[in-house]
């Protein structure tokens, strides 16, 4: 049994337990130093993953390949950035009390769960990784326990999440029953030998996909997203939108193409349906939202739908486009949430879109950065979001999914409306009471770096595109 490929996760798990002990002994005043240690530990784990050998670990339970490493890089960037953004709000004055020291520790454990699940090479390791991540996220959603909305968000997320875990387990059980294996390689061999997937296997795949679709918040399993995004504390919402999305999308891609690759006839249509519904729900749902966190929730449903269009193509190109999309979406999300976190007036967080009115005059640089991010989300060239959509749509067209591609483009046009409305509010409306300035330095850093990445993607695309290409290639060679 080889443990070396999983050293990053082992390091992070140990770091989590040590930091928990430090937090218990020092108390909540250690919360802010802990966030820096957590971010450092995450990057240390990523660096360790770079040097450790790739390959199977623990007798085939886990695998460290290029796809896992790509997803882990996204998880680390997303988690570290949101952990640091949360540190900037360690002592909010809106009566919600200081940050609890458990918050960075739980974020670390959630990251461990995500890294485990993107490395999963077995239905059992998939489940334990997913559960570790989900359980930490349920608690994080409700960590401001004195807030009614946060408690509601946590409870809703927990109940629906438990239901989806049950469906996923049922599906995994059916797949185990009808292929006789839980290991992905052996499931793949069994599915290949089967030719046309048996009825029981198809039932298993459908339930497994329902569970996974819930985790990525794709329609029709998206109902929890707006409430949880709105109710949870904003740094936590940023965390939800960044790291778990990328992890769950990578997991979705691996499960569908690696063990069930030869059953694509069974799941292709379902993924196409989920993707089409998601882009439509994302486009229309966001039109009427005045709360910017709810708006971001619907926007995330739409973006996940777009990424899944890539998966529906069921080709190497499709998985590559999904990975590129989730990477670019991660940076757009980080920038948008850095801005939302900076939206404060008289030291209180504001979150309706009308509070953006006239921001171009009061906060010109912030408004410029957000405008770039929103143009990118809407898919306007030459920003990164345009290329993300381009890769996905070209993969779909290559696989003959013309209807899905047209639906995606139409939904993208509709969603332009609400992105452009935000820009119109910032640039053409009279300013209301000015928001607090200047922007906290850490938030400004995240916003600046993420916006820069979105802007220069057209000049230097290779760090994202080349690694995603290599990851997809390796996945399809297995």
């Amino acid at each position: 049994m080889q443990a070396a490929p999983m050293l990053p996760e082992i390091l992070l798990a140990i770091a989590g337990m040590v930091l928990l002990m430090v937090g218990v002994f020092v108390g909540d005043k250690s919360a802010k130093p802990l966030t820096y240690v957590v971010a450092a530990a995450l990057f240390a784990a990523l660096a360790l993953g770079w040097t450790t050998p790739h390959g199977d670990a623990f007798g085939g339970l886990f695998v460290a390949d290029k796809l896992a490493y790509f997803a882990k890089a996204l998880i680390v960037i997303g988690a570290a950035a949101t952990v640091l953004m949360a540190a900037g709000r360690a002592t909010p004055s809106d009566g919600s009390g200081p940050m609890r020291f458990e918050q960075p520790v739980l974020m670390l454990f959630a990251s461990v769960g995500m890294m485990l699940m993107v490395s999963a090479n077995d239905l059992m390791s998939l489940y334990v990784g997913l559960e570790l991540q989900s359980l930490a996220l349920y608690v994080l959603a409700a960590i401001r326990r004195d807030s009614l909305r946060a408690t509601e968000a946590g409870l809703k997320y927990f109940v629906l999440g438990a239901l989806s875990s049950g469906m996923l387990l049922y599906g995994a059980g059916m797949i185990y029953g009808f292929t006789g294996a839980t290991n992905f390689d052996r499931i793949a061999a069994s599915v290949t030998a089967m030719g046309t997937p048996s009825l029981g296997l198809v039932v298993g795949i459908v339930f497994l996909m329902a569970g996974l679709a819930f985790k990525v918040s794709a329609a029709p399993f998206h109902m929890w997203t707006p409430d949880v995004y709105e109710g949870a504390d904003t740094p936590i919402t940023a965390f939800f939108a960044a790291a778990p999305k990328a992890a769950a999308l990578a997991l979705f891609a691996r499960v569908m193409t690696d063990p069930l690759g030869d059953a694509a006839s069974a799941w292709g249509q379902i993924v196409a349906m989920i993707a089409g519904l998601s882009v439509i729900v994302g486009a229309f749902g966001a039109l009427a939202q005045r709360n910017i966190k709810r708006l971001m929730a619907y926007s995330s449903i739409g973006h996940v739908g777009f990424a899944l269009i890539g998966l529906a193509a069921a080709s190497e190109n499709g998985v590559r486009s999904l990975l590129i999309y989730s990477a670019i979406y991660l940076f757009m999300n980080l920038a948008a949430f850095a801005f939302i976190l900076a939206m404060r007036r008289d030291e209180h967080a504001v979150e309706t879109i009308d509070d953006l009115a006239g921001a171009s005059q009061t906060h010109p640089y912030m408004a410029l950065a957000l405008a770039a991010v929103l143009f990118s989300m809407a898919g306007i060239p030459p920003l990164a979001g345009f290329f993300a959509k381009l890769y996905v749509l070209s993969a779909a067209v290559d696989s003959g999914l013309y209807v899905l591609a047209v639906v995606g483009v139409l939904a993208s046009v509709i969603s332009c409306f609400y992105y452009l409305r935000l820009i119109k509010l910032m640039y053409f409306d009279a300013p209301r009471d000015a928001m607090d300035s200047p922007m906290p330095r850490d938030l400004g850093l995240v916003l600046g770096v993420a916006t820069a990445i979105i802007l220069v993607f057209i000049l230097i695309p290779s760090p994202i595109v080349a690694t995603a290409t290599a990851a997809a290639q390796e996945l399809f060679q297995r």
Partner: protein
Amino acid sequence: MIVATLCFYLFAGVAIVSGLMVVTARNPVHAVLFLILTFFNAAGLFVLLGAEFLAMALVVVYVGAVAVLFLFVVMMLDVNFQELRAGAARYMSVGALVGLALLAELALVLGGMTLGGVEVSGGALPTPPADQVHNTRALGQIIYTDLFVLFQIAGLILLVAMIGAIVLTLRSRPGVRKQKIADQLARTPEQAVEVVKVPLGGGAQ
């Protein structure tokens, strides 16, 4: 062989009779005691099947913990079981339906039903074969050796659950009287005892 068959009929017969007694006994304490008897007989049936780990787990978990807990609850709470039983006739039809569904499933399994080309009752063969290794050892091998990393991650999940329970519910309230053992131990006789002279017929101040 004949002994095993006799044992099977003994365990099965007692299990059915005591199972019936669980639902018909008038005294709730008797009902719980019959439940424990049923568990013991089911454990005996598992031993006959060669599943000694399941038999042990049944005795330890169900008899040792769950049934005794039941017994405590039944004896300590003043529950009127006659009242609870009053509605039984109304729900009899639903119960019968559930029973019929279970019976039908049993018949399907025994009748060799196939689903997607796989026989429903034809479970995967145990690995390693049961005559080579005891199932306790086989389970231990799988959980603590082959899949020990999953066992560790499960521990991590429980840790996160524990953190969550504490984060979401534990509150330090001011003004709560707590026992401070260090303070109690540090007390000296001078702090605790006051020696007063009581004049005859005067009483202590």
